[in-house]
């Protein structure tokens, strides 16, 4: 099991991440990845950018716990998770989750699970810049509800 987790201000390169998931990998038949991008519209308002704050120290620990839980639930071989912090503009990349596994069911489920738990458990906060000023993004009840599907 190979796990890579990073919290960084720098952008990431999906091609590099995908190459790392495939490198010398002859056993996996399925790679699923999720990439999260800054949307121009959020909750009805036009957004020009955002600042992402986090809780250094806790962030990596929380992400690792989420990945470990996914690896305990499904047979995975590699997971790569990168979350950016700092200042981002519209259409910038925010987060990458890449999972490789022998079969697609495990890869799809684990990638989706990691994103759903990251949205609820990892200490990141977005502050959006809109025409009427800055505002902290409010957590959505739909993100909390998204966890229901993973109840055992």
């Amino acid at each position, binding site marked *: 099991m190979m796990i890579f987790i990073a919290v960084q201000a720098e952008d990431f390169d999906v091609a590099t991440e995908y190459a790392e998931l495939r490198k010398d990998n002859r056993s996996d038949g399925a790679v699923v990845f999720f990439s999260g991008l800054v949307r121009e519209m959020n909750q009805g308002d036009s957004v020009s950018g955002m600042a992402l704050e986090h*809780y250094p120290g*806790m962030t990596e620990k929380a992400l690792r716990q989420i990945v470990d839980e996914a690896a305990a639930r499904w047979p995975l071989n590699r997971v790569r998770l990168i979350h950016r912090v700092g200042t981002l503009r519209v259409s910038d990349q925010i*987060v990458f989750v890449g999972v490789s596994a022998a079969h697609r069911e495990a890869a799809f489920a684990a990638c989706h699970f990691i994103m759903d738990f990251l949205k*609820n458990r*990892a*200490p*990141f906060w977005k502050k959006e810049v809109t025409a009427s000023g800055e505002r902290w993004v*409010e957590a959505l009840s739909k993100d909390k509800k998204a966890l229901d599907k993973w109840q055992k």
Partner: protein
Amino acid sequence: MKILFFAALRERLGCDSYELETALPTDINTVRSALQQAFPAQAGELTTERALAAVNQTLIHDNASINDGDEVAFFPPVTGG
């Protein structure tokens, strides 16, 4: 003991940490109440709904005991991803 704050809670309380005078061991519910007394105008921001708690960088869902040296933090529901 030192309590850390993040994001909107940090801004609304006007500080990124607060030194709380309290006997140890204690628990997270007691600390939360003490903070609400210390910041009466922002007590509504410190409810269990509006402020999550972490002890030693782990989210706490129930009441948890706090001992000397533990790192305690409060922050709004998270919005990453």
